[in-house]
């Protein structure tokens, strides 16, 4: 048996030098693609995620159409070269599950009843993966949906909390994810604090679970600031001069 990897050093710091409640660096850009209706690019640690949004557009195939509201469809995909081991192209059970829970989290905040029979299609491409890609994907997707001008009651911000060497750690890195004791991705609607995505695997006491949930919710609020900042940067200049017009023809 290999020796157990030590994930927290004597100073209480993690293998990448972070404190237990510290996020990795995050950078978000909105409106980065030419053809998509809305888009976002996010770097989170070494994660690189690109999201394209189309819609609302007529849902295809037709049997999917809801005459009362839009449906939300998400396709989460890892690029073949996005991790150390090559990812075989095409759908797999993990990607299908992540797509489903991401769609459900987004549907919670998207105002769908203005768009009967339509679909809002979200394509999440993980170009480089470094643990936490579902939270990175959901966080970027919320920015891309807002960038598409789609009505929403809120954004969604997500972050994972885990446990390693018996200690709760915010935003697990790759080693912590591989060798830690628990992982809990959390997504919230920041305005209300409502939890819209929650998964957990591993082993936590009930007390740890509650504390971890708090940590994740607090961190998601910080991530929400980065999301709104990205959207404001995208449009602040562009809209500065929208003054000399009135209704049409």
């Amino acid at each position, binding site marked *: 048996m290999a020796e157990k990897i030590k994930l927290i050093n004597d100073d209480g710091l993690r293998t990448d030098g972070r404190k237990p409640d510290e996020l990795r660096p995050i950078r978000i850009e909105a409106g980065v693609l030419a053809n998509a209706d809305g888009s976002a690019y996010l770097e989170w640690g070494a994660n690189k995620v690109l999201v394209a949004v189309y819609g609302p557009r007529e849902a295809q195939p037709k049997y999917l159409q809801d005459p009362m509201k839009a449906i939300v469809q998400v396709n989460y995909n890892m690029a073949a070269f996005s991790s150390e081991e090559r990812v075989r192209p095409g759908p797999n059970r993990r990607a299908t599950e992540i797509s489903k829970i991401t769609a459900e989290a987004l549907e919670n905040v998207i105002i769908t009843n203005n768009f009967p029979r339509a679909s809002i299609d979200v*394509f999440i491409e993980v170009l480089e993966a470094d643990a936490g890609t579902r939270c990175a994907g959901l966080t970027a997707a919320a920015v891309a949906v807002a960038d598409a001008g789609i009505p929403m009651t809120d954004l969604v911000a997500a972050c994972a909390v885990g446990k390693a060497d018996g200690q709760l750690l915010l935003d697990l890195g790759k080693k912590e994810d591989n060798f830690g004791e628990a992982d809990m991705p959390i997504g919230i609607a920041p305005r209300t604090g409502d939890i819209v995505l929650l998964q957990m695997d591993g082993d936590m006491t009930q007390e740890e679970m509650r504390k971890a949930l708090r940590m994740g919710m607090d961190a998601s609020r910080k991530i929400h600031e980065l999301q709104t900042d990205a959207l404001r940067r995208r449009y602040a200049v562009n809209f500065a001069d929208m003054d000399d017009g009135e209704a049409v023809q």
Partner: protein
Amino acid sequence: MKRNIIPEIKKELIYRLAQRECREDDRPLLAYREMNFAINPISTAEGSARVQLGKTDVLVGVKVQPGEPYPDKPDEGVLMTGCELKPMAHPSFETGAPSDDSVEIARVVDRGIRESNMIDMKKLCIEPGKKIWIVNLDIQVIDYDGNLFDSATIASLLALHQATVPASRFGLGDDFRMPASSWPVTATFVKIKDIIMADPTMTEELSADARLTISIDDGGHVRAMQKGLKGSLTYDEVSRAVDTAQKLTLDIRSRLISGE
């Protein structure tokens, strides 16, 4: 999701402009769009490159892993090229199994690399008949505005030239540089009625009757060709296209070698 249709008046405009040796973006008929590229932007890949040709944007990653050789080539490595045209790049692209278009792009890119012997496949043999290196070249289109053949080829060449064979990760000795030596660059043309133009945009491709991709190696030899679409080309048109491809690929190649 939607069929990719462009207005008839757009097609007419493109042709009328072409008759005046003009294009929508002010380019001469045989000029390429502005090209930008980035080398090794993806650290999980053994080699990677991103190429922007106008608004077309392509990312290519190389993954290398040990595997078994083909029985007919027991002492040679294997190159496998894949291309996916995903909805991210254009609303007319769909998820699911690779489309005919994406298979054609992957095969044309692969052919140029393979036929030029750019990669010394014998150096990718670990143990003859048993173990060789499999080189996976995966093409991911980020934004589509025409000419994926050339942008994917250019990104593939850059990614392969920069790639490392990760031997130490598999306990197979020291890492070494991908044995890549030459730059088989392609040039792609479309024919709209009687006019030939290089590096077509999406609207030019959708207006085109025929398409021709030509791969030229460092010595000026033709290493692969692909004629596409339902229209035809004359002997003279092909002959002139090869001549032009020689000049165009020379410029691109020198930029790729200088890395700027």
